[in-house]
């Protein structure tokens, strides 16, 4: 049955060069395991293992009070120490150092991971699976998916949106998950739809991937899931813009999608949830896109939580000395100071770039071209914001609402004067959020 789906659009945005061709058709492959893993422990969680303990894959390494941030062991091995390591987002994180005693870690097979009847899974099992799958996997935006699902169940949501847009360039992990585990994703989304008693569940897919769209439509035929193919105009794959595009509703400043009755989840979260539902395994590894001009064998690799960047680079091979290492996409990711960094479940991609990619000219004065305001999906005025920041005009700054910024980075991308617009706005937003509660200032 073909259903017409009304869809909207959003202001601004750009069709960026996607740069996905090197990895988008490569199936998910295993990567040789490193000698040591540094599995990060969430803040507030207490390690449940001691030095020298033998641990098995799937065993709980750390227990959090709420139960939403437990850490599980990806492989069989032995705990060597509780070490401090750096991740892409934090300089110092408590990790459990594990000596790997396992030959290899095979990615889940796409054929086996399909339970007979998704809707037959009991409510309690779903609650458990949310803790196992979505709890240990951090959603892409850093929010805890399990907690969001719990809140959604308590408060009730009308719409669940599975974000398969992956609108950022170079990233193909979610795309591969949809291609290889489409049935699992649709099944898990179906069960979640009933678990949350939602009115509609959407799966947003890039309209340019015609085959994937067709396959997803086929898979979702007998389910209440609606597959929506959207043009991949960056940054459509962010929560407020997906809600805007699919539901035609704006998220008020300082609120989140849940406040207007929508739950947005990444494909990887749904995938982990699906595995937890069907096989009762926690999320301990993820698909990592390894790409960039300096990488010898780019691809989508199944990488356990806590793998060092150095190991991934060695395994995927470096053609030449990269000029820049980036975790995540080139628009929103993090630049790495060195390769002594640990990859977590939050890292969708690792890019090793050569000097000619992404170089930036020195900044010159703003020429008032207005391009930044034209592309900003939040309808901010980045040029005026930067001016207000530099001149420390507090009132003007407050009037321009830097808190609405979603860090898409487009203003810096288009700026012909190479001004540091996005980073300045993101800094001032961070300092405002630390200083005052965002919700209160908004309500006042």
């Amino acid at each position, binding site marked *: 049955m073909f259903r017409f789906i009304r869809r909207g659009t959003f202001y601004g945005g750009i069709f960026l060069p996607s740069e996905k061709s090197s990895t988008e058709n490569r199936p998910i492959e295993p990567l040789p395991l490193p000698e040591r893993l540094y599995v990060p422990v969430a803040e507030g969680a207490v390690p449940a293992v001691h030095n020298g303990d033998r641990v098995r894959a799937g065993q709980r390494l750390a227990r959090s009070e709420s139960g939403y941030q437990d850490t599980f062991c990806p492989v069989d091995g032995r705990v060597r120490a509780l070490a401090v390591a750096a991740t892409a987002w934090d300089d110092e994180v408590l990790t459990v150092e594990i000596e790997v005693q396992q030959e290899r870690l095979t990615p889940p097979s796409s054929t086996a991971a399909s339970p007979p009847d998704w809707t037959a899974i009991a409510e309690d099992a779903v609650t458990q699976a949310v803790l196992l799958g979505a709890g240990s996997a951090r959603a892409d935006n850093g929010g805890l998916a399990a907690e969001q699902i719990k809140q959604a169940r308590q408060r009730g949501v009308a719409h669940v949106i599975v974000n398969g847009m992956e609108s950022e360039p170079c990233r193909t992990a979610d795309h591969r998950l949809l291609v290889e585990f489409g049935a699992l994703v649709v099944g898990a989304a179906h069960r979640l739809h009933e678990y949350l008693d939602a009115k509609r569940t959407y799966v947003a897919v890039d309209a340019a991937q015609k085959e994937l769209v067709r396959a997803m439509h086929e898979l979702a035929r007998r389910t209440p899931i609606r597959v929506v193919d959207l043009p991949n105009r960056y940054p459509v794959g962010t929560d407020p813009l997906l809600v805007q595009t699919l539901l035609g509703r704006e998220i008020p400043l*300082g609120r989140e999608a849940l406040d207007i009755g929508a739950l947005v989840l990444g494909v990887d979260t749904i995938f982990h949830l699906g595995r937890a539902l069907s096989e009762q395994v926690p999320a301990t590894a993820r698909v990592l896109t390894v790409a960039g001009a300096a990488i010898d064998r780019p691809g989508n690799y199944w990488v356990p939580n806590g793998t060092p960047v150095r190991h991934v680079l060695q395994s995927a091979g470096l053609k030449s000395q990269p000029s820049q290492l980036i975790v995540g996409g080139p628009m929103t990711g993090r630049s790495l100071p060195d390769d002594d960094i640990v990859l977590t479940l939050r890292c969708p991609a690792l890019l090793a770039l050569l000097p000619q990619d992404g170089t930036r000219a020195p900044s*010159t004065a703003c020429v008032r071209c207005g391009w930044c305001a034209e592309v900003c999906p939040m309808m901010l005025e980045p040029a005026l914001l930067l001016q207000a920041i530099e001149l420390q005009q507090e009132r003007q700054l407050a009037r321009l609402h830097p808190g609405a910024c979603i860090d898409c980075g487009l203003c810096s*991308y288009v700026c012909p004067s190479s001004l540091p617009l996005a*980073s300045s706005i993101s800094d001032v937003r961070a300092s405002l959020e630390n200083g005052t509660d965002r919700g209160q200032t908004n309500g006042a």
Partner: protein
Amino acid sequence: MELETHHRPEGPPYWHSTEVLRHVSGVTLVALLPVIAAGALLFGLRTFLYISVAIACAAAAELFICKLLNRRTQIRNGHTVVLATILALAAPPACGIGIIACGAVLLVVAKQVVGGLGHYLWHPVLVARAVLCFMFPVLMVPDHWPVLNEDHLATGDIARAAPRRDNNTWFDLDPLAENEAWTAARPVRILTDLYNVPPAEAQPASESVLRLVRDKLPPALDCLLGTTGGGIGETSVIAILLGGVFLVYRSYVHWTLPVFAIVGLVAAAAILPIPGGPSGEALAWWPIRLISGNPSLPVGFMLVSYHLIVGEFMFAIFFVASDMTASPIRTRGHAYYGFGIGMLTVGLRMAGFAAGSTYWAILIMSTLIPAIDRLTRRRVYGT
């Protein structure tokens, strides 16, 4: 393995569009090529001389002033080169290189004194032009404007010119005449006279427009091709549209600016009254005539069309008003800005400013840019 990577702690994005100011200037120069070609064809090879003198003087002045002010030169971004080219194209064909050199220095001063690119409120070329108009009114606003003879296109010298009757089409002029060029009044001057007839000579408005179009103005084709009097790059509407549409296509000029400028000009020219004599009606409101079915409708339409194609209007809205710094920051502001320029152009022509009415209109509207920016503030998503 030791990796030496370039860490960028300031944060994302790590990708940048490769489009920098140099490209914007380059594309603008490419868009100016048809205008330059038309200028060279109609006014002789001195077009190239003017442009080179303007660029050389502007570059030298920029280097000198930046040295003087101890400022980093930005000559490599090409903005000053574009400005100098526009200055040369907006100049009268017979003004001489002294004026051009003087204007080039003035434009750099107008740009650099207020802080350089990104800081000025008034377009430097227009400031330089305004100063030149006050300093050398005879050279900048002459009574007779030359255009080359058909047989001497591109090669002739406009200094060897003979006067011609105003309403003759250029194609009917004798190509074998000894003079290499013909001079005539600018069509915009003739158009302006319509609004400024002494009361004693005034006729009914419909009558005066009819006479104007039939007896005084050159044919529309002349105005479109550019074979009438005017600045080097200002006369050929077709060449200007070629370059201008290319700029709009490359989105270096947002379409709202020229479109709303044209809408503003058409609205003002159609609606604003034309003075009539004591015997006839005082106003010739074109839309009202349209409704009442008066036969003078085609003349009204012709008047509006002539307003569009005479003078510097087209050149100014595509190449001068579209300057990034001296235009509003938002798209909606561009619409207001353009509309104001169109309205003011007609207003100034009615008041008798034939020379550079659009340039003056742009200067006035530039003054209002901060107000326009304030007026067009947008609602931020979610507030």
